[in-house]
């Protein structure tokens, strides 16, 4: 089964992508159709027993990014609110470890702040809710649509564009229609998923780049800056630097300037 295509086969030039991201998405739609075909068991076996491919430094970085996406997604989903200082200490160290692969000042600043601010863990939940959850008007709403187009109303065009992107990659929210598709934690989780899949099929990497270009780059940095305006909480501020730094690293790699 041609489960794993050769890199060259599915490459679409970056140029095409920049000028016509929709085309790329269509391309992926085709490829995900193909993916419906069952996986060859033998091939699986073969892989399991075979030795792991040598670690390519690019792939190494990719895995680090995935880890950071996962961390950021969990953070924004509110899953890290109840953990204690001790756990934050450990997490902070691990994040620093991941970040050390990137020579990027903002990211490092972010991870340093997380480690220094573990004392803010006590107030984290209150500050987090004030910024991102409610019940009061959100001070830094973590929804793409709030930063683009339909300000303070989602499930409009902007949210639907994100939903369409997920669907073309063969995914849909478990909580579809109960929570807006363009919540930051979902977008980050999705980016991480695309990276993970790209380890096997490079078309996902192209999709990843397109997702950043069409979505995350359109608002996440502005969101991070807004967060820092609105809170003094070191953990949240640290996360905002980390996230913004990650975006900047990707921008540099993809050669996309911030407008």
């Amino acid at each position, binding site marked *: 089964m041609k489960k794993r295509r050769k890199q060259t086969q599915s490459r679409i030039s970056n140029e095409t992508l920049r000028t016509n991201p929709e085309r790329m998405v269509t391309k992926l739609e085709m490829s995900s159709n193909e993916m419906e075909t069952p996986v060859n068991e033998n091939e699986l076996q073969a892989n399991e027993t075979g030795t792991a491919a040598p670690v390519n430094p690019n792939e190494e970085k990719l895995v680090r990014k995935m880890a950071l996406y996962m961390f950021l997604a969990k953070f924004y989903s509110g899953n890290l609110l109840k953990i204690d200082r001790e756990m934050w200490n450990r997490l902070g160290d691990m994040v620093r470890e991941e970040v050390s692969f990137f020579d990027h000042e903002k990211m490092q600043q972010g991870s340093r702040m997380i480690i220094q601010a573990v004392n803010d863990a006590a107030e984290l939940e209150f500050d987090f809710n004030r910024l991102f959850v409610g019940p009061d008007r959100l001070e830094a709403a973590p929804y793409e649509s709030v930063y*683009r*187009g*339909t*300000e*303070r*109303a989602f499930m*409009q*065009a*902007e949210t639907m564009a994100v939903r369409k992107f997920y669907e073309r990659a063969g995914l849909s929210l478990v909580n579809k229609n109960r929570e807006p598709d363009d919540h930051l934690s979902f977008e980050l989780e999705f980016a991480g998923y695309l990276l993970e899949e790209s380890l096997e099929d490079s078309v996902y990497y192209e999709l990843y780049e397109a997702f950043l270009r069409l979505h995350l780059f359109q608002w996440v940095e502005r969101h991070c800056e807004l967060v820092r305006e609105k809170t003094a909480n070191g953990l949240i501020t640290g996360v905002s630097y980390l996230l913004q730094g990650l975006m900047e690293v990707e921008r540099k790699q993809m050669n996309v300037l911030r407008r």
Partner: protein
Amino acid sequence: MAKKQKRYAFLINLERCIGCNACTVSCKSFYDLHPSINRRFVRETSELLTGTPKRNYISTSCNHCDRPACATACPTGAYIKLDNGIVKHNQDRCIGCRMCATACPYGVPQFDPVKKKMDKCDMCVDRLEAGEQPICVVSCPLEAIAIVDLNEIDESQVVADLPGFADSSITGSSTRFILPKGTTVVRGGIKSWNTL
């Protein structure tokens, strides 16, 4: 005999319009417009429009002019005047230079900060072609907006100009208004306080 080409235009009945903005909001909702953009505008106008002071409003959108200044000004030819009278803006051609906004005496075209292109009312041309009325027409709770055929309408019953509304002769605005009637005002023993 061949059917005469229709010339669509908005007819706004100011005697009915209560300035409620239902037209603005339903259009915004239907077309999923950026919140800073309205294709219809409801303005308060002079309290003295009919002599005795009272609350008056005008609801307008693009006037689908006979000599559209937007089209003349647009460097990419994004505006076209259709045979049925509608001035249509083609967003694919639009480069967001805002020349049209400057040229239009009514300030109609608006800049969409997300699409980076101009936006304006197209009289719901797709709906009209499908035999449906524009969204503002079917949404107005007072049924104050109608689409008329300028070839059929009795021009003596309507006006094209209102105080505070740019002279219709500049671009040949196709919008027509039914003027509000006067109201007899009795207050504090003064029959009409025009003189006050």
